């Protein structure tokens, strides 16, 4: 089953006098349960593609389908609901809500989904333990390191069992050890829950570990590598 389908996506930004094509007639299919890495130099269009898949960026033209449903035509409320129910996000920075503790951040999406407190508590405890943050549940983001914060964000992204997790430069601000740990965590979660992961990065440590690597340049896919074969 196809988790993500992009058809002829175009997106152009105006920067001063110049038009920059972030997505240039880009088409791609990602199957459910896949672990995909989008790789491109800065300005290559990977974040724009990730945002378009997540319903955060409206393409100028083309189609975006998530789990068989076209989303680029949906309104703000429907897109918010889609993100809430089906997609988990990990952003490069500023991932957590500062006034909430680690546990409350993890439970945030579940609370919006209307999941009961007992179930939320059980799931958040298990996930925080899985990402190595047991005992830090009551800490606020300002009391945690960057790596710990990213792990809380990952826990939040997967805790409600979304079909798709989108991560934008998740290792950009992390040291190599923490970055490796995070990718291992992604891989484990992908294996355990069969969650589809799409990660935008130009971190070679990440690119080396993922099964499928999509290389982009100037808003187009220039290479689509199945790394399991190699």
């Amino acid at each position: 089953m196809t988790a993500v389908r992009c058809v002829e996506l175009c997106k152009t930004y105006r920067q001063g006098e110049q038009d920059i094509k972030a997505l240039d007639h880009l088409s791609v299919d990602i199957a459910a349960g896949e672990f995909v890495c989008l790789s491109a130099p800065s300005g290559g269009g990977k974040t724009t593609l990730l945002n378009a898949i997540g319903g955060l960026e409206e393409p100028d033209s083309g189609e975006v389908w998530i789990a068989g449903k076209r989303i680029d035509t949906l309104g703000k409320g429907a897109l918010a609901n889609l993100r809430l129910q089906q997609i988990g996000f990990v952003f490069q920075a500023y991932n957590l809500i500062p006034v909430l503790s680690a546990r409350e951040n993890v439970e945030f999406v579940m609370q919006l989904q209307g999941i009961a407190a007992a179930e939320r508590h059980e799931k958040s405890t298990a996930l925080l333990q899985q990402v190595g943050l047991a005992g830090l549940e009551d800490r606020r983001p300002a009391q945690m390191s960057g790596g710990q914060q990213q792990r809380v964000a990952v826990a939040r992204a997967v805790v409600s069992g979304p079909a798709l997790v989108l991560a934008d430069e998740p290792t950009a601000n992390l040291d190599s050890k923490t970055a490796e740990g995070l990718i291992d965590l992604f891989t484990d979660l992908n294996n355990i829950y069969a969650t589809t992961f799409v990660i935008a990065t130009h971190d070679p440590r990440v690119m080396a570990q993922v099964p499928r690597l999509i290389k982009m340049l100037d808003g187009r896919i220039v290479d689509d590598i199945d790394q399991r074969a190699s």
Partner: protein
Amino acid sequence: MLRLRILFMLAWRNLWRNKRRTLIMLAAIGIGVWAMIFMTALTQGMVDKMVRDGITALPGEVQVHNPDYLDDPTVANLLPTADSELQRRFGAAGFNQWATRLRVPAVISSERESRGVTLLGIDPARERQLGFVDYARVQGRFLYNAEDDAIVIGRALAATLETGIGKRVVIMSQDPQNNIADRGFRVVGLFRADLESLEKTFVFTGKKTLQSLLKVGNHVSEIAVTGNEYRNVDPLYDKVRRLVDEQVVVSRWTELNPYLGSMLKVMDGFVLVWVIVIFLALSFGLVNTLVMAVFERVREIGLMLALGMKPSNILGQIMIESMFLLIFGLLIGNLLAVASIAPLRGGIDVSVVAKGMAMMGSAPVLYPLLRIQDVLLANAVVLILGLLASLSPAWRAARYEPIKALRKVD
């Protein structure tokens, strides 16, 4: 319910992210609300005293007269029904505070001076209930009964006439046949009033004594009835109207003293304007606080939107934050108001401006009047208009594009 819970939690915690700003805003709202209530209480206290003094000077919230009496308040225009019949009807109607009077213009003369006055023939037992005279402040004695043939005058009038207790004065008026009716009276008491004008205007003697002097038999010129709420005299008016003949005029105090009636309306309007003016000053601070709070949290709001929080929830969160600010500010303001008004129940001495106050018809002591409806008005204005003012920053926050808001990180 769960969403509401997290909205309340986020709003509450965000409120205390910048403690100093929140405390300053709470202090501003609290002081503003205090100023609203305190000034309203002073204004209402002054108006209340003016109206009560005015009604006391009439006195009676509802009065009955001969139709010609209001234009020509003389002995020629008495009520057609005999006093004994009026006594019977009003006595049976169950009014607590009512009296019949003979009120005529007269001239009072001492051996040194003469003055025009309003001469009232009264039944002191009935007038006592109407509160015409503060009996505790009568020097000498007041009238014993309706047959009493002595006279009680105001302290200021006694000074003007250079007379006093035990001395004789001459009262001169007219009988219905336009003959001069005069006789000598002994002054037995000097009454005091908050307003000097009352002391100079009214002179009291027994009702039957005056009826005899003016040769009007068993007739009076007015019936006065007072209820418990001068702001709402219509029920009293209707009850009185049913008791009297159609050809007589029944008047509310607002009609007998249009100045006071309009003053009451003007002051009620003034209170509303005052409350709104203070609110406008407050609203700038409130909106600025919320705009800053939203501006500082653009990325956070973008994150919440990206995670699936609906724009309406963002709007709700900011509105709840505003509501917290308003409710706590109101609480502080109300407590300050009660704490500052309670010690002033005995009155505020403004005798340094007594003449100016007297010109406005007000006594030299102000009694703040804390009316529940004024407190509710101030609270409702602040809460409702405050929430409306908060809609703008909340609406702006709810309309953020999540990705643009998140890009503020970079």
